Protein backbone atom coordinates (compact mmCIF):
# COMPACT_ATOMS: atom_id res chain seq x y z
CA UNK A 1 0.00 0.00 0.00
CA UNK A 2 1.30 3.41 -0.95
CA UNK A 3 1.76 5.42 2.22
CA UNK A 4 1.09 9.14 1.88
CA UNK A 5 1.42 9.95 5.58
CA UNK A 6 4.91 10.98 6.65
CA UNK A 7 6.34 11.50 10.11
CA UNK A 8 7.36 15.12 9.77
CA UNK A 9 8.10 17.93 7.34
CA UNK A 10 11.70 16.81 6.71
CA UNK A 11 10.62 13.29 5.85
CA UNK A 12 7.82 14.58 3.64
CA UNK A 13 10.22 16.70 1.58
CA UNK A 14 13.00 14.11 1.38
CA UNK A 15 14.06 13.46 -2.21
CA UNK A 16 11.83 16.15 -3.66
CA UNK A 17 14.14 19.16 -3.33
CA UNK A 18 16.79 20.33 -5.78
CA UNK A 19 18.58 23.59 -6.46
CA UNK A 20 16.96 25.75 -9.11
CA UNK A 21 13.52 24.20 -8.68
CA UNK A 22 10.16 25.96 -8.90
CA UNK A 23 7.99 25.78 -5.79
CA UNK A 24 4.40 26.91 -5.31
CA UNK A 25 3.57 27.88 -1.74
CA UNK A 26 -0.06 28.34 -0.66
CA UNK A 27 -1.37 31.18 1.45
CA UNK A 28 -2.53 34.77 1.27
CA UNK A 29 -0.38 37.00 3.44
CA UNK A 30 0.31 34.79 6.47
CA UNK A 31 -3.11 33.14 6.25
CA UNK A 32 -3.05 29.50 5.24
CA UNK A 33 0.70 29.25 4.66
CA UNK A 34 2.55 25.91 5.03
CA UNK A 35 4.73 27.15 7.85
CA UNK A 36 6.15 23.77 8.85
CA UNK A 37 7.17 22.92 5.29
CA UNK A 38 8.70 26.36 4.73
CA UNK A 39 10.78 25.87 7.88
CA UNK A 40 11.90 22.47 6.63
CA UNK A 41 12.91 23.96 3.27
CA UNK A 42 15.03 26.49 5.11
CA UNK A 43 16.77 23.70 7.02
CA UNK A 44 17.22 21.64 3.85
CA UNK A 45 19.12 24.56 2.35
CA UNK A 46 17.84 24.10 -1.19
CA UNK A 47 18.85 27.15 -3.25
CA UNK A 48 18.06 29.23 -6.33
CA UNK A 49 14.36 28.71 -5.86
CA UNK A 50 11.70 30.22 -8.06
CA UNK A 51 8.78 30.61 -5.70
CA UNK A 52 5.21 31.10 -6.89
CA UNK A 53 3.21 32.60 -4.05
CA UNK A 54 0.78 35.49 -3.85
CA UNK A 55 3.00 37.19 -1.25
CA UNK A 56 6.39 36.56 0.30
CA UNK A 57 5.63 36.37 4.00
CA UNK A 58 6.95 39.03 6.36
CA UNK A 59 10.39 39.70 7.78
CA UNK A 60 11.22 36.66 9.89
CA UNK A 61 8.14 34.56 9.17
CA UNK A 62 6.61 32.58 6.32
CA UNK A 63 8.53 32.77 3.06
CA UNK A 64 10.43 35.70 4.59
CA UNK A 65 12.75 33.18 6.25
CA UNK A 66 13.79 31.81 2.85
CA UNK A 67 14.56 35.36 1.74
CA UNK A 68 16.78 35.85 4.79
CA UNK A 69 18.72 32.72 4.02
CA UNK A 70 19.15 33.78 0.39
CA UNK A 71 17.47 30.65 -0.96
CA UNK A 72 15.03 32.44 -3.27
CA UNK A 73 16.21 33.55 -6.70
CA UNK A 74 12.89 34.69 -8.11
CA UNK A 75 9.37 35.39 -6.90
CA UNK A 76 6.18 35.20 -8.97
CA UNK A 77 3.65 37.12 -6.88
CA UNK A 78 0.90 39.71 -6.97
CA UNK A 79 1.86 41.74 -3.90
CA UNK A 80 4.99 41.87 -1.78
CA UNK A 81 4.45 45.02 0.24
CA UNK A 82 4.75 43.45 3.68
CA UNK A 83 8.43 42.69 3.57
CA UNK A 84 11.32 45.14 3.99
CA UNK A 85 14.03 42.58 3.25
CA UNK A 86 12.26 41.84 -0.01
CA UNK A 87 12.58 45.47 -1.05
CA UNK A 88 16.27 45.55 -0.16
CA UNK A 89 17.09 42.36 -2.08
CA UNK A 90 15.05 43.44 -5.06
CA UNK A 91 16.59 46.89 -5.29
CA UNK A 92 20.08 45.44 -4.99
CA UNK A 93 19.37 43.03 -7.84
CA UNK A 94 19.73 39.92 -5.67
CA UNK A 95 16.11 38.93 -6.25
CA UNK A 96 14.09 38.65 -9.46
CA UNK A 97 10.45 39.49 -9.37
CA UNK A 98 7.54 38.81 -11.73
CA UNK A 99 4.27 40.48 -10.85
CA UNK A 100 1.02 38.91 -11.96
CA UNK A 101 -2.42 40.33 -11.24
CA UNK A 102 -3.81 38.23 -8.41
CA UNK A 103 -6.64 36.75 -10.46
CA UNK A 104 -4.37 36.03 -13.40
CA UNK A 105 -1.92 34.31 -11.05
CA UNK A 106 -4.72 32.22 -9.55
CA UNK A 107 -6.06 31.29 -12.97
CA UNK A 108 -2.62 30.51 -14.41
CA UNK A 109 -2.11 28.02 -11.59
CA UNK A 110 -5.59 26.56 -12.00
CA UNK A 111 -4.92 26.22 -15.76
CA UNK A 112 -1.54 24.57 -15.15
CA UNK A 113 -3.17 21.93 -12.99
CA UNK A 114 -6.06 21.47 -15.42
CA UNK A 115 -4.02 20.82 -18.58
CA UNK A 116 -4.79 24.20 -20.11
CA UNK A 117 -1.61 25.71 -21.58
CA UNK A 118 -3.10 29.16 -22.21
CA UNK A 119 -6.26 31.21 -21.80
CA UNK A 120 -7.49 34.73 -22.50
CA UNK A 121 -8.40 37.34 -19.90
CA UNK A 122 -9.37 41.00 -19.93
CA UNK A 123 -7.23 41.66 -16.88
CA UNK A 124 -4.16 43.76 -17.65
CA UNK A 125 -5.05 44.70 -21.22
CA UNK A 126 -3.53 48.10 -21.95
CA UNK A 127 -1.12 47.87 -19.01
CA UNK A 128 2.50 46.79 -18.50
CA UNK A 129 1.21 43.31 -17.72
CA UNK A 130 0.16 42.68 -21.30
CA UNK A 131 3.36 43.95 -22.92
CA UNK A 132 4.89 41.35 -25.20
CA UNK A 133 1.86 39.09 -24.90
CA UNK A 134 -0.70 38.26 -27.55
CA UNK A 135 -3.74 40.53 -27.54
CA UNK A 136 -6.85 39.26 -29.24
CA UNK A 137 -10.33 40.58 -29.78
CA UNK A 138 -13.30 38.39 -28.96
CA UNK A 139 -16.79 39.78 -29.58
CA UNK A 140 -15.57 43.36 -29.53
CA UNK A 141 -13.35 43.31 -26.46
CA UNK A 142 -9.59 42.90 -26.21
CA UNK A 143 -8.09 40.12 -24.16
CA UNK A 144 -4.53 39.11 -23.34
CA UNK A 145 -3.30 35.54 -23.58
CA UNK A 146 -1.80 34.18 -20.36
CA UNK A 147 -0.03 30.85 -19.92
CA UNK A 148 -0.74 28.02 -17.48
CA UNK A 149 1.76 27.65 -14.67
CA UNK A 150 3.16 24.47 -13.13
CA UNK A 151 5.82 23.80 -10.53
CA UNK A 152 8.18 21.04 -9.50
CA UNK A 153 6.66 21.04 -6.03
CA UNK A 154 3.71 22.60 -4.30
CA UNK A 155 3.62 23.02 -0.55
CA UNK A 156 0.12 23.34 0.85
CA UNK A 157 -1.58 24.03 4.17
CA UNK A 158 -4.99 22.56 4.96
CA UNK A 159 -7.09 22.39 8.09
CA UNK A 160 -8.01 18.72 7.99
CA UNK A 161 -6.68 15.92 5.85
CA UNK A 162 -7.09 12.16 5.80
CA UNK A 163 -4.62 9.40 5.06
CA UNK A 164 -5.65 9.37 1.40
CA UNK A 165 -4.79 13.05 1.08
CA UNK A 166 -8.35 14.37 0.95
CA UNK A 167 -8.26 17.94 2.25
CA UNK A 168 -10.59 20.49 3.83
CA UNK A 169 -9.52 24.10 4.26
CA UNK A 170 -10.86 26.50 6.88
CA UNK A 171 -12.33 29.94 6.11
CA UNK A 172 -10.09 32.33 4.15
CA UNK A 173 -7.08 30.09 4.74
CA UNK A 174 -8.22 28.24 1.61
CA UNK A 175 -7.06 30.95 -0.87
CA UNK A 176 -4.34 29.68 -3.26
CA UNK A 177 -3.94 26.25 -1.68
CA UNK A 178 -6.49 24.26 -3.75
CA UNK A 179 -5.17 25.35 -7.16
CA UNK A 180 -1.55 24.95 -6.15
CA UNK A 181 -2.26 21.41 -4.97
CA UNK A 182 -3.17 20.58 -8.58
CA UNK A 183 -0.23 22.31 -10.29
CA UNK A 184 2.82 20.78 -8.62
CA UNK A 185 4.53 17.73 -10.11
CA UNK A 186 4.73 16.71 -6.46
CA UNK A 187 2.42 18.02 -3.77
CA UNK A 188 3.21 17.95 -0.05
CA UNK A 189 0.61 19.01 2.49
CA UNK A 190 0.65 19.93 6.16
CA UNK A 191 -2.61 19.77 8.10
CA UNK A 192 -3.69 20.79 11.57
CA UNK A 193 -5.76 17.64 11.96
CA UNK A 194 -4.80 14.37 10.33
CA UNK A 195 -7.75 11.98 10.36
CA UNK A 196 -8.68 8.49 9.18
CA UNK A 197 -10.42 8.03 5.83
CA UNK A 198 -14.15 8.18 6.40
CA UNK A 199 -13.95 11.05 8.88
CA UNK A 200 -14.34 13.70 6.18
CA UNK A 201 -17.71 14.03 4.46
CA UNK A 202 -17.10 13.26 0.73
CA UNK A 203 -19.33 16.22 -0.20
CA UNK A 204 -17.17 18.62 1.82
CA UNK A 205 -13.74 17.71 0.49
CA UNK A 206 -12.09 20.67 -1.23
CA UNK A 207 -9.02 18.88 -2.60
CA UNK A 208 -9.41 15.20 -3.57
CA UNK A 209 -6.55 12.96 -2.48
CA UNK A 210 -5.41 12.31 -6.04
CA UNK A 211 -3.56 15.64 -5.93
CA UNK A 212 -1.68 14.88 -2.72
CA UNK A 213 1.52 12.85 -2.73
CA UNK A 214 2.60 13.27 0.89
CA UNK A 215 0.87 14.56 3.98
CA UNK A 216 1.94 15.40 7.52
CA UNK A 217 0.33 16.60 10.69
CA UNK A 218 2.18 19.88 11.22
CA UNK A 219 4.36 19.80 14.34
CA UNK A 220 3.51 23.34 15.37
CA UNK A 221 1.26 26.05 13.98
CA UNK A 222 2.11 29.57 15.01
CA UNK A 223 -0.54 31.05 12.70
CA UNK A 224 0.64 34.62 13.10
CA UNK A 225 -1.73 37.44 12.24
CA UNK A 226 -0.38 40.41 10.29
CA UNK A 227 -3.04 42.93 11.25
CA UNK A 228 -5.13 42.11 14.28
CA UNK A 229 -8.05 44.47 13.82
CA UNK A 230 -10.78 44.39 16.44
CA UNK A 231 -13.68 46.44 17.72
CA UNK A 232 -14.60 47.18 21.32
CA UNK A 233 -17.40 45.10 22.82
CA UNK A 234 -19.87 48.00 22.96
CA UNK A 235 -19.84 48.73 19.23
CA UNK A 236 -23.03 48.22 17.32
CA UNK A 237 -22.06 45.52 14.81
CA UNK A 238 -24.33 46.58 11.96
CA UNK A 239 -22.31 49.68 11.15
CA UNK A 240 -18.95 48.00 11.43
CA UNK A 241 -18.95 45.86 8.37
CA UNK A 242 -15.55 45.92 6.74
Amino acid at each position, binding site marked *: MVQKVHADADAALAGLLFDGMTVMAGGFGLCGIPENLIAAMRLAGVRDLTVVSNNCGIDGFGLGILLESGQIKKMISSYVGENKLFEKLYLSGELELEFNPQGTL*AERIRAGGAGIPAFFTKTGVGTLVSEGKEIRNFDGDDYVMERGLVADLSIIKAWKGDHEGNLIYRKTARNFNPMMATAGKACVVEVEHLVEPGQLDPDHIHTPGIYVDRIIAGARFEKRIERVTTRPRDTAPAKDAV
Partner: protein
Amino acid sequence: MAWTREDMAARAALELQDGFYVNLGIGIPTLVANYIPDGMSVTLQSENGMLGMGPFPFEGEADADLINAGKQTITELAQSSYFSSSDSFAMIRGGHINLSILGGMQVAENGDLANWMVPGKMVKGMGGAMDLVAGVRRVVVVMDHCEKTGAPKVLKRCNLPLTGAGVVDLLITDLGVFEIDRKVGGMRLTALATGVSLDEITAKTEADFIVAL
Protein backbone atom coordinates in the same frame (compact mmCIF):
# COMPACT_ATOMS: atom_id res chain seq x y z
CA MET B 1 -13.56 73.74 2.08
CA ALA B 2 -13.87 70.36 0.50
CA TRP B 3 -15.18 66.92 1.33
CA THR B 4 -13.56 64.89 4.12
CA ARG B 5 -12.73 61.22 3.77
CA GLU B 6 -16.01 60.45 5.50
CA ASP B 7 -17.92 62.75 3.12
CA MET B 8 -16.37 60.97 0.15
CA ALA B 9 -17.26 57.57 1.59
CA ALA B 10 -20.83 58.74 2.18
CA ARG B 11 -21.04 59.96 -1.42
CA ALA B 12 -19.69 56.66 -2.70
CA ALA B 13 -22.31 54.82 -0.64
CA LEU B 14 -25.00 56.44 -2.80
CA GLU B 15 -23.82 54.07 -5.55
CA LEU B 16 -24.98 51.05 -3.55
CA GLN B 17 -28.25 49.33 -4.36
CA ASP B 18 -30.24 46.73 -2.51
CA GLY B 19 -28.99 43.24 -3.31
CA PHE B 20 -25.63 44.44 -4.61
CA TYR B 21 -22.46 42.41 -4.28
CA VAL B 22 -19.63 44.86 -3.72
CA ASN B 23 -15.85 44.80 -3.43
CA LEU B 24 -14.31 47.62 -1.40
CA GLY B 25 -10.65 48.56 -1.68
CA ILE B 26 -8.34 49.62 1.12
CA GLY B 27 -8.52 53.15 2.59
CA ILE B 28 -11.51 55.41 2.01
CA PRO B 29 -13.45 52.67 0.15
CA THR B 30 -13.39 50.57 3.33
CA LEU B 31 -15.28 53.37 5.10
CA VAL B 32 -18.17 53.03 2.63
CA ALA B 33 -19.38 50.02 4.61
CA ASN B 34 -20.31 52.38 7.43
CA TYR B 35 -22.75 54.20 5.16
CA ILE B 36 -24.86 51.30 3.93
CA PRO B 37 -28.44 52.51 4.50
CA ASP B 38 -30.55 50.67 7.06
CA GLY B 39 -32.69 48.01 5.45
CA MET B 40 -30.46 47.77 2.38
CA SER B 41 -28.84 44.41 1.86
CA VAL B 42 -25.32 44.71 0.47
CA THR B 43 -22.94 41.73 0.43
CA LEU B 44 -19.24 42.51 0.63
CA GLN B 45 -16.77 40.36 -1.28
CA SER B 46 -13.18 39.95 -0.19
CA GLU B 47 -11.05 38.82 -3.11
CA ASN B 48 -8.95 36.49 -0.98
CA GLY B 49 -11.99 34.20 -0.98
CA MET B 50 -15.09 35.29 0.91
CA LEU B 51 -18.57 36.62 0.31
CA GLY B 52 -20.44 38.19 3.21
CA MET B 53 -17.71 39.93 5.20
CA GLY B 54 -18.77 40.76 8.72
CA PRO B 55 -17.42 43.41 11.10
CA PHE B 56 -14.04 43.29 12.85
CA PRO B 57 -14.00 40.71 15.65
CA PHE B 58 -14.30 41.69 19.29
CA GLU B 59 -10.99 42.05 21.09
CA GLY B 60 -9.54 38.64 21.84
CA GLU B 61 -11.64 36.90 19.18
CA ALA B 62 -9.47 37.42 16.09
CA ASP B 63 -9.10 34.26 13.99
CA ALA B 64 -5.88 33.80 11.99
CA ASP B 65 -7.86 31.91 9.34
CA LEU B 66 -10.29 34.75 8.75
CA ILE B 67 -8.86 37.89 7.16
CA ASN B 68 -9.89 40.29 4.43
CA ALA B 69 -7.91 41.32 1.36
CA GLY B 70 -6.28 44.07 3.44
CA LYS B 71 -5.07 41.29 5.79
CA GLN B 72 -7.20 42.61 8.65
CA THR B 73 -9.03 40.15 10.89
CA ILE B 74 -12.77 40.04 10.22
CA THR B 75 -15.81 37.91 11.09
CA GLU B 76 -18.37 35.92 9.15
CA LEU B 77 -22.12 36.46 8.83
CA ALA B 78 -25.01 34.00 8.58
CA GLN B 79 -24.91 34.14 4.78
CA SER B 80 -21.11 34.01 4.36
CA SER B 81 -19.33 31.60 2.05
CA TYR B 82 -15.66 30.84 1.42
CA PHE B 83 -13.96 29.86 -1.82
CA SER B 84 -10.52 29.58 -3.41
CA SER B 85 -8.63 32.44 -5.06
CA SER B 86 -9.35 31.04 -8.52
CA ASP B 87 -13.06 30.85 -7.74
CA SER B 88 -12.92 34.34 -6.26
CA PHE B 89 -11.38 35.86 -9.36
CA ALA B 90 -13.62 33.81 -11.63
CA MET B 91 -16.42 35.65 -9.82
CA ILE B 92 -14.69 39.00 -10.35
CA ARG B 93 -13.50 38.42 -13.93
CA GLY B 94 -16.84 36.92 -14.92
CA GLY B 95 -18.66 40.15 -14.11
CA HIS B 96 -20.65 38.84 -11.16
CA ILE B 97 -19.70 41.64 -8.75
CA ASN B 98 -21.97 44.68 -9.17
CA LEU B 99 -19.66 47.38 -7.90
CA SER B 100 -16.04 47.93 -7.02
CA ILE B 101 -14.99 51.02 -5.08
CA LEU B 102 -11.27 51.62 -4.94
CA GLY B 103 -8.60 54.25 -4.48
CA GLY B 104 -6.57 55.89 -7.22
CA MET B 105 -3.37 57.77 -7.93
CA GLN B 106 -4.49 59.16 -11.30
CA VAL B 107 -7.67 59.02 -13.37
CA ALA B 108 -7.85 60.20 -16.98
CA GLU B 109 -10.78 61.54 -18.94
CA ASN B 110 -10.92 58.34 -21.00
CA GLY B 111 -11.49 56.24 -17.87
CA ASP B 112 -7.89 55.06 -17.49
CA LEU B 113 -6.83 54.39 -13.92
CA ALA B 114 -3.35 54.31 -12.39
CA ASN B 115 -3.11 53.16 -8.79
CA TRP B 116 -0.42 50.55 -8.45
CA MET B 117 3.07 51.78 -9.24
CA VAL B 118 5.28 54.83 -9.34
CA PRO B 119 8.37 54.27 -11.50
CA GLY B 120 11.53 54.66 -9.48
CA LYS B 121 9.81 53.75 -6.22
CA MET B 122 9.60 50.24 -4.81
CA VAL B 123 6.59 48.55 -6.36
CA LYS B 124 4.53 46.47 -3.99
CA GLY B 125 2.44 44.86 -6.69
CA MET B 126 -1.02 45.24 -8.15
CA GLY B 127 -2.64 42.57 -6.01
CA GLY B 128 -6.20 42.12 -7.25
CA ALA B 129 -6.73 45.67 -8.52
CA MET B 130 -6.22 44.92 -12.22
CA ASP B 131 -8.69 42.05 -12.06
CA LEU B 132 -11.25 44.14 -10.21
CA VAL B 133 -11.21 47.08 -12.63
CA ALA B 134 -11.26 44.75 -15.64
CA GLY B 135 -14.01 42.48 -14.38
CA VAL B 136 -16.42 44.30 -12.10
CA ARG B 137 -19.50 45.76 -13.79
CA ARG B 138 -19.19 49.28 -12.36
CA VAL B 139 -15.98 50.81 -11.07
CA VAL B 140 -15.95 53.81 -8.73
CA VAL B 141 -12.68 55.52 -7.81
CA VAL B 142 -12.41 57.60 -4.66
CA MET B 143 -9.28 59.77 -4.28
CA ASP B 144 -7.99 63.23 -3.44
CA HIS B 145 -8.35 65.60 -6.34
CA CYS B 146 -4.70 66.72 -6.27
CA GLU B 147 -1.33 65.56 -5.03
CA LYS B 148 -0.11 67.07 -1.78
CA THR B 149 2.18 69.15 -4.00
CA GLY B 150 -0.91 70.51 -5.72
CA ALA B 151 -0.22 68.60 -8.94
CA PRO B 152 -3.39 67.45 -10.68
CA LYS B 153 -4.45 63.80 -10.53
CA VAL B 154 -7.48 64.11 -12.81
CA LEU B 155 -5.71 64.15 -16.13
CA LYS B 156 -6.07 64.12 -19.89
CA ARG B 157 -3.87 61.02 -19.89
CA CYS B 158 -2.31 59.17 -16.95
CA ASN B 159 1.47 59.39 -16.84
CA LEU B 160 1.82 56.60 -14.29
CA PRO B 161 1.61 52.97 -15.45
CA LEU B 162 -2.03 51.94 -15.78
CA THR B 163 -4.02 49.58 -13.62
CA GLY B 164 -6.65 49.44 -16.31
CA ALA B 165 -7.44 51.19 -19.60
CA GLY B 166 -10.91 52.71 -19.89
CA VAL B 167 -12.24 51.15 -16.71
CA VAL B 168 -13.54 53.94 -14.43
CA ASP B 169 -17.29 54.75 -14.44
CA LEU B 170 -17.39 57.28 -11.63
CA LEU B 171 -14.76 59.40 -9.91
CA ILE B 172 -15.35 60.88 -6.47
CA THR B 173 -12.74 63.32 -5.20
CA ASP B 174 -12.66 65.72 -2.27
CA LEU B 175 -13.75 68.43 -4.72
CA GLY B 176 -16.54 66.79 -6.66
CA VAL B 177 -18.01 63.92 -8.65
CA PHE B 178 -17.35 63.04 -12.31
CA GLU B 179 -19.15 60.53 -14.47
CA ILE B 180 -16.98 58.93 -17.13
CA ASP B 181 -18.18 57.36 -20.33
CA ARG B 182 -15.55 54.69 -20.56
CA LYS B 183 -16.64 53.46 -23.97
CA VAL B 184 -16.41 56.76 -25.88
CA GLY B 185 -14.37 58.61 -23.26
CA GLY B 186 -15.33 61.94 -21.74
CA MET B 187 -16.00 63.24 -18.23
CA ARG B 188 -19.06 65.03 -16.89
CA LEU B 189 -18.89 66.95 -13.62
CA THR B 190 -22.11 66.08 -11.81
CA ALA B 191 -21.53 67.43 -8.31
CA LEU B 192 -19.34 69.88 -6.45
CA ALA B 193 -18.17 69.24 -2.91
CA THR B 194 -19.46 71.52 -0.18
CA GLY B 195 -17.92 74.95 -0.55
CA VAL B 196 -16.07 74.14 -3.77
CA SER B 197 -16.62 76.46 -6.74
CA LEU B 198 -16.67 75.51 -10.39
CA ASP B 199 -13.70 77.82 -10.86
CA GLU B 200 -11.69 76.00 -8.19
CA ILE B 201 -12.36 72.51 -9.53
CA THR B 202 -11.69 73.65 -13.09
CA ALA B 203 -8.39 75.17 -12.07
CA LYS B 204 -7.32 71.99 -10.30
CA THR B 205 -8.34 69.58 -13.10
CA GLU B 206 -6.20 68.87 -16.14
CA ALA B 207 -8.82 66.73 -17.82
CA ASP B 208 -11.47 68.24 -20.02
CA PHE B 209 -14.97 67.81 -18.68
CA ILE B 210 -18.52 68.85 -19.40
CA VAL B 211 -20.33 70.62 -16.58
CA ALA B 212 -23.58 68.82 -15.79
CA LEU B 213 -24.38 70.05 -12.31
